[in-house]
């Protein structure tokens, strides 16, 4: 490595203009003259020279200090890595405690708010659920009453055989009325669901219920108390005797534990009537 004649002067080594002189570096006056003879690669030689141990007391002391530095460095790094509250200052601890207290308060209020919201939601849900169940119950019973829902339960099966067509609509209507009087809740004759508006009419071909022609034998499926219904049918002067008085007609009642009324009726939308406002009702 040759030194060009106009090479950079190294007399101000490491002290660029404007840089603060380093008090901890060692500007020993007696060593200053070395600088004027140093060449650009002189520092490396100095470094190499410094690496050669001279065994002086000062050098050993410097080595010892460096050892202490390395030791302290490692200890401090380790300490920082596992830093816990114990290594903090009192003021820092107080600040952390304050922060924690504030945070705790915030979280507590948030928790209370969330609990309130949860309770509201829960009670709202249960109220809605109760309302829904009540509405469903009403829908079910109204459906059974209006004939829009199938129904099942104990009841009787009433069979009236009239091959000669001797029975008129009024006889069947009487039978239905008698059933209703004795507590029948749901009635189906053949495939017609009998509801409040069901009509029995005489036609040329026989009896029609709600416009549907009924064929003998007329098969009544009735849900109600079987015993009561049976008794009501056989009461003297009742349905049985009227059917029996007609020529060729036969009458049969069977009590059943389970009667399925599955004939349905399409509900008609009222043309004029509409639900009254609840407040308008006295």
């Amino acid at each position, binding site marked *: 490595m040759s030194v060009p004649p106009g090479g950079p002067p190294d007399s101000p080594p490491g002290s660029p203009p404007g840089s603060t002189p380093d008090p901890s570096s060692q500007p020993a006056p007696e060593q200053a003259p070395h600088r004027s003879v140093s060449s650009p690669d002189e520092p490396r030689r100095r470094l190499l020279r410094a690496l050669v141990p001279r065994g002086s007391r000062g050098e050993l002391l410097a080595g010892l200090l460096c*050892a202490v530095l390395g030791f302290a460095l490692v200890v401090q790094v380790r300490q920082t890595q596992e830093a816990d509250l114990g290594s903090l200052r009192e003021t820092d601890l107080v600040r952390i405690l304050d922060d924690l207290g504030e945070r705790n308060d915030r979280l507590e209020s948030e928790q209370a708010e969330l609990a309130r919201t949860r309770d509201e939601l829960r009670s709202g849900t249960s109220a809605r659920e109760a309302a829904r169940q009540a509405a469903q119950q009403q829908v079910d019973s109204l459906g059974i009453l209006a004939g829009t829902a199938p129904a099942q339960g104990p009841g009787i099966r009433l069979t009236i055989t009239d091959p000669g067509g001797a029975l008129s609509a009024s006889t069947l209507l009487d039978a239905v009325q008698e059933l209703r009087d004795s507590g029948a809740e749901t009635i189906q004759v053949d495939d017609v669901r009998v509801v409040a508006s069901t009509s029995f009419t005489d036609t040329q071909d026989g009896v029609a219920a709600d416009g549907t022609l009924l064929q003998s034998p007329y098969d009544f499926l009735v849900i109600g108390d079987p015993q009561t219904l049976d008794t009501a049918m056989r009461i003297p002067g009742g349905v049985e005797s009227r059917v029996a008085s007609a020529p060729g007609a036969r009458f049969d009642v069977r009590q059943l534990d389970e009667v399925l009324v599955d004939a349905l009726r399409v509900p008609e939308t009222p043309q004029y009537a509409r639900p009254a406002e609840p407040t308008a009702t006295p």
Partner: protein
Amino acid sequence: MIAALGLVVGILVGLVLQPTVPPELQPYLPIAVVAALDAVFGGLRAVLDGIFDDRVFVVSFLSNVVVAALVVYLGDQLGVGAQLSTGVVVVLGIRIFSNAAAIRRHVFKA
């Protein structure tokens, strides 16, 4: 050479022994370490400048550490320990940087 060896030995000893810092020393150790680092960088620069002297190094090392710890201790007593620690670290950091820049110029000629 001995200094570098000492540094390595100290690090190894610290790794092996894994000591804990006594609580009363905990605020001062980091500052002392930074101050000692400053002294070491200054010494390295002095080596490259060709003006290194063992005695000066030892004295500057010890005085750096003691003064830094003293300043922090004083700050703690005055209630501005945290701020003063920051100030000391900033000053020492600036000195370390300027020393490192001088060393860099020596080693890399840039």
